[in-house]
């Protein structure tokens, strides 16, 4: 297999597999946040704020994978 093909394969796999984890993570965060709101609708303000905070942490990991994919695609 020539290097061009390998590079494309690498870029696709990096972006795809790397974003799998954070997607699951954010889904789990949403699940627990909604459960919390369902149990205690008055606390929905603080719950939403904390949910957004933790979601940004989780998303950052996915962004790391995206950066690697962009660097592979454009610079290497």
């Amino acid at each position, binding site marked *: 297999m020539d290097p061009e093909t390998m590079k494309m394969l690498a870029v696709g796999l990096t972006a795809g597999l790397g974003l799998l984890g954070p997607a699951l993570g954010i889904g789990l965060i949403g699940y627990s946040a909604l459960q919390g709101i369902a149990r205690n609708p008055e606390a929905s303000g603080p719950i939403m704020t904390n949910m*957004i*905070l933790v979601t*940004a942490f989780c*998303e*950052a990991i996915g*962004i*790391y994978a*995206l*950066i690697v994919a*962009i*660097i592979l695609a*454009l*610079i290497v």
Partner: protein
Amino acid sequence: MAKRRILGMPRLLLVGILVLFVLLLIVGFLVGPLGRKIFGDLGLPAWLSLPQPELHLPAETVFHLFGFPIANSIIGAWITMAVLICLSYIITRRMRIIPGRLQSAFEFLLGWLYDLCRRVAGEENGRRFFPVVTTIFLFVAFNAWLSLIPGFGSIFITNAEGEHVHLLRGANTDINMPLALALVSFVFVEYFGLRSLGLRYLGKFLNVGQFFQSIGHMAKGRLRAGLGGMFTGFIHIFVGLLEALSEMVRVVSFTFRLFGNMTAGEILLLIVVFLIPWVVAPLFYGLEMLVGFVQALIFSGLTLVFLTLAVAHHGEESS
């Protein structure tokens, strides 16, 4: 019969706007690369479509000032600074007890941030951390939002090496700016920690108290207490080193979180506008505005949290 108005417009105008929107959507789809793949070249005029976007990760130099290369993201950062300073001057020039619209908008924003600082850090610490947190928030948010203004990516200039480069670029998309902000946040965390706790703040990282205490036990002949203490002493030292490492890694994590979100957003906008020109961009503009605001909030909120942790007195201290 009274004229029927939907959304404040006469019904005919609304229908006309919707038809125009759908027309532009169809034309844009047909003329962009997606439509060209599916339907072939329909002979539509070439000025309707966009050229393939070229993506440069490092920021290009525009001109040199006293020997320093000034990149287009630095010019973007200067524009943000100018906007923020002018806004602050205009708002505070004639402050009134019952504020006008612009003043009350900024009072709302600053009051909300002040409440956040007070809620997370406590009453007096919140006051101390408020300037740093708000500065980081406003700088990151305005950098992100100002780079969405139409025209920000369209002005080209030929620089000294003869390349055709963008004149302006959002400062958050150049990796040096998030790195600088992360370093500023790191320095402030250490500064506030040292100022509140003195040199005992460093005791969090060099946690050798338990270890020396156990050597003291051994020297006095209490062997079992000494050995147990030495074991926990080793663990304390290891945990301290891990804490120091995580402080350093925090800088890297801050940098890449902000840089990655902003660059990915910019690339997303470029590609979407290239794929379906004309009308799809507003959806992604909304997403970008939200992402800019959330990232600014995350950066400043995390700085606030780490500042609070740094000035907190530790619970257990070796006597």
